[in-house]
Structures are given as structure tokens and as C-alpha cells.
């Protein structure tokens, strides 16, 4: 009798777990089907290459695509050197030291700060205090701060997995620390670092709250780093809320999803190839 109860419990648990797994898959499928279903038909070459017309009812979303790309580019440009530098410092120049702990704590904390707080910060610091106005620069720098923790941790991971023997060989040949880093460590850590960058790109694309407050929402093609810009996710939000053109909204949403799908697949593939398979 005892036996039966145990196996009954197990059977029930199994069923419940299957339901859980299936409903998770179901929700994802539902979301994809809803957005892509309505949005894919809207996507054609003109959608990607034209600017919006008629208050957003016609035309395409080119300025927002450019905006998303440029904003992400600026963020990566600033965050990568800082992030990789930090990772190098943490891994090669200190060991379990006080400073290392403090830096790690700071990085982990930064990773947890919600995007609206970054938005408030970016607004008061970049837009107002440094007088950059609502611009690509303000938005990009804010975004850089947001992706910094990701770059630091992936870079650290990548550097960590490089066997100590690499360093040994370099030092025994008389190399200095910096030479070791630049010639033995970094080149081999590059794939991992690259993956971190791709992951950050994926995150940046979905970022909305912080960008609205720092890069503005102007729909015009940018002419300089100080122009305001609207990203695809902001455009989607505005279109979906204003209800001016649901078609365009769905189209933008579909484009967004395809973009993150693409980036995620690439990142996942890279992750598997270069990081997980390092014994």
C-alpha cells in the first residue's frame, strides 16, 4: 500500500510537471503566433527601407532601424573596452583581494538596477547635467552602463576558461603581464567576449524605458550623434498605444521578434561552440 501511494504521487507529479513544461512552450508559441501572424505579412523590403509617412500609417520604419543599430553600436563601443578591461583586471591582476570583491559586488549590483532607474539617471546626468540633450549619445551611454555587467561577466568567464598553462608558457618565455594578456589570453578569449557582445545586443534591442527618457522619440533620420532617435521597441510601443496603425505596429513587432530571434540563435550557437565545450 505504501508503495502504491509513492508511485501515485510520482505519477501526479510527472503529469503536473509535463503540464508546466507544455504551458510554458504554449505561451511562447501563442505570443509568437500572435505577433508574427499579424506582422509577417506587413514585412517587405519597402518596410525596412522607407521612412514613415502619414503620421506613421504608411511607409516603413527605416529611421527606427537605424536608430536601434546606432544606439546599440554606441553602447557597445563604450561598454566593451570598459568591460573587457575590468575582466582582465579581475582575472589577471588581482586575486581574491579586497578591491576585487568590491568591484564584483558593484558589477552584480549594477546588473540588478531596473531600467527605469537607468532612465532617470541617464536623463538627469547625460541629458540635463552634461547638457547632451535627448540624443543618440545620451541614450547610448546609458545603454552602455546597462550592458556593462553582462560584458564583464562573459569576458570574465571567457578568460577564466583559458588554461593556466597558457600563462605559464608566456611567463616562462619572459613575457610581462601585459604581454601575456594581449598575446596569450585575449586572442583566445575573443570568442567568449564576442558572445557577450552579442548577448548585450539582444538585450539592448528590447530596452525601452531607459531609452525614451534619454534618446527621445523623434522619428526623423539622425544626422549626428546629438540627434534624438527612436528605436524599434519605442516605435512599437508608441504605435501600439496610439493605435494610429495597428498594421504598422504588428509589423514593427514582428521585425523586433525576428531580430531578437536571430541574435539569440547566433549567441546560443557561439556560446555552445566556444564556451561550453572548453573542458
Amino acid at each position: 500500500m505504501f508503495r502504491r501511494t509513492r508511485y501515485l504521487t510520482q505519477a501526479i507529479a510527472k503529469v503536473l510537471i509535463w503540464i508546466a513544461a507544455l504551458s510554458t512552450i504554449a505561451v511562447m508559441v501563442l505570443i509568437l503566433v500572435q505577433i508574427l501572424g499579424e506582422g509577417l505579412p506587413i514585412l517587405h523590403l519597402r518596410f525596412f527601407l522607407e521612412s514613415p509617412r502619414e503620421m506613421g500609417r504608411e511607409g516603413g520604419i527605416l529611421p527606427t532601424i537605424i536608430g536601434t543599430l546606432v544606439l546599440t553600436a554606441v553602447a557597445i563601443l563604450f561598454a566593451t573596452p570598459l568591460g573587457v578591461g575590468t575582466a582582465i583586471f579581475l582575472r589577471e591582476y588581482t586575486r581574491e583581494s579586497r578591491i576585487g570583491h568590491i568591484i564584483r559586488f558593484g558589477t552584480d549590483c549594477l546588473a540588478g538596477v531596473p531600467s527605469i532607474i537607468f532612465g532617470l539617471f541617464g536623463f538627469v546626468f547625460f541629458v540635463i547635467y552634461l547638457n547632451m540633450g535627448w540624443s543618440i549619445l545620451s541614450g547610448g551611454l546609458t545603454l552602455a552602463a546597462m550592458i556593462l555587467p553582462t560584458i564583464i561577466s562573459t569576458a570574465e568567464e571567457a578568460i577564466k576558461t583559458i588554461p593556466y598553462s597558457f600563462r605559464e608558457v608566456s611567463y616562462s618565455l619572459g613575457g610581462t603581464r601585459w604581454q601575456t594578456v594581449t598575446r596569450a589570453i585575449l586572442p583566445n578569449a575573443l570568442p567568449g567576449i564576442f558572445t557577450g557582445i552579442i548577448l548585450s545586443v539582444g538585450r539592448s534591442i528590447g530596452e525601452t524605458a531607459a531609452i525614451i527618457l534619454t534618446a527621445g522619440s523623434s522619428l526623423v533620420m539622425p544626422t549626428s550623434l546629438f540627434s534624438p532617435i527612436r528605436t524599434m521597441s519605442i516605435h512599437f510601443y508608441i504605435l501600439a498605444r496610439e493605435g494610429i496603425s495597428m498594421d504598422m505596429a504588428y509589423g514593427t513587432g514582428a521585425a523586433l521578434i525576428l531580430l531578437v530571434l536571430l541574435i539569440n540563435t547566433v549567441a546560443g550557437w557561439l556560446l555552445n561552440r566556444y564556451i561550453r565545450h572548453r573542458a
Partner: protein
Amino acid sequence: MKADLMKIYLSWFFSILLIFLQIVGCQRSKAGITVAGSTSVQPFGELLADEYMRHHPESHIYVQGGGSTAGIEAVKSHAAKIGMSSRSLLPDEKNLYAVTIAKDAIAIIVHPKNPINDLSLTRIKQVFSGKTRSWNELGGPAHPIILVSREEGSGTRESFQKFVMDREEISLESLVQDSNGAIRQVVSNDPNAIGYISLGLVNEKVKVLKISGVEPNVTDIENGTYTLVRPFLFVFNDEPEGEAKSFLEFVLSQPAQYLLSKEGLVPVLKRSGK
């Protein structure tokens, strides 16, 4: 071997990135003006800016949202050349130069299936202050009234407050949405909802209520019978000059005003100075 490949990829990646940024960043800032403010005016502002830039290809007009108050602040602090406002200026803003570019009515909307067609201003006030809580007090079914309003700081909300609520507060229970379109969306989906939006944004998915028999149509707005009318303003720090003046003149011209009236606004062809 793999590392070399990666190195090549990465260096290509970064060089393309840098070249791209150079192209975008090195373009000298053309004569651009920023127009910021009310999200109600924003779509019309964008429309006008588009039209203007079509005739003046060397100009750049950046239209931003942010809200009427933010737009006026931006003008005061010179962050923007032109501010858009969907409410009239407050006493401490009176030293700015404001021009009415169009008139917009505020429409009270309900779900198309809602049996109510007409309410008096007093009734509307009672509804939005939370005193009247159920539709059956107005002759409808016994369902609770769901209020939908704009957020604090919105020009639309302030105009509504001024024209309808007077001293009374909008009920704290009302749903709050951050754009006219969002209010329209909620009302069009919920048979028990009532809200207020810009007349220019009304479509067949919602029903506009008459106020004591008066409908918000162009005639009744222009002759003042429909009272929930607010100005769309362009606000300047001083008498506008240069590009800003040129844009303003365009906005007040016949073709631009026609464009606005096609979108549901009431055109205006005279200026109001300080």
C-alpha cells in the same frame, strides 16, 4: 587557427562600427530645430514637419513628445525651439510667445454598445468624480462605471479638468493611460468604460457622447456651442525668427491648415500674440 579567424571577425566588426559611427557622427548638424511637447499635438506636429521638410529639404525638424508641460519647460530652458501645448498657458508661463495653430475638441467617448447617447456636463462631472458609480443611475444596465483618464501633467487631462471638473478631483479609481490612443483602445474594448480623448482621434470603434444635445462637430465648435474646446499651441521663447518663423508661417498657411482639418482638427487662421 580559430582564434585568428575570430580576431579577423572582430577587427572587421569594430572597424565597420567605427566607420558607421563616423558617417553618422561627422555630419555637421544641419539647421535643425526641436519641437517638443504635448503628445496630443505630436502626431500633427510630425505631419506638419514632414510636409514642411518636403518643401524645404535642407531643414530638419525633430518632433518629440514629452507632454505639454515638458514642452513648455524645454522652450524656457532653450532645449527646444518650439513647444507644443494642448492647453492654454498658465499664469507663470504667460511671458512666452504662444500661437494657436489649431483648435481641438475633447470628446467624451463610450463603447459603441453603450445605450447612453447624451449626458449633461454636470452628469459627466459626477461620473468622473466617482459620485455616480453605476450605469443604471444614468439609465443604462446595472454595471459599474469604469473611468479612463489621462495622466497628471497631460494637457488633455488639464483641459478636461478645467472645462468639466472645475474644482472637483477626478476619481482616484479611474484607470490612467498615457495617450489618447490608449484611452480609445480601452473604451473600445470595455462596454462599461467611459473616457475623454482628442476629437481628432475618434474613430468608428468608439461612440461620442453629446453634451446636453450638442455634438462636437465643426460648426458647433467654431460657434462656441460645444464648449470642450482647447487650443493647440506652438510656444516660443520670443517672437520667432529664422527657421522657426518659417515653420510657423507654413503651419498657419492654407495648405497646412487644410491638412490639419482633414485629420479632424479645427483650423484657425488668425494669430494670438503674447
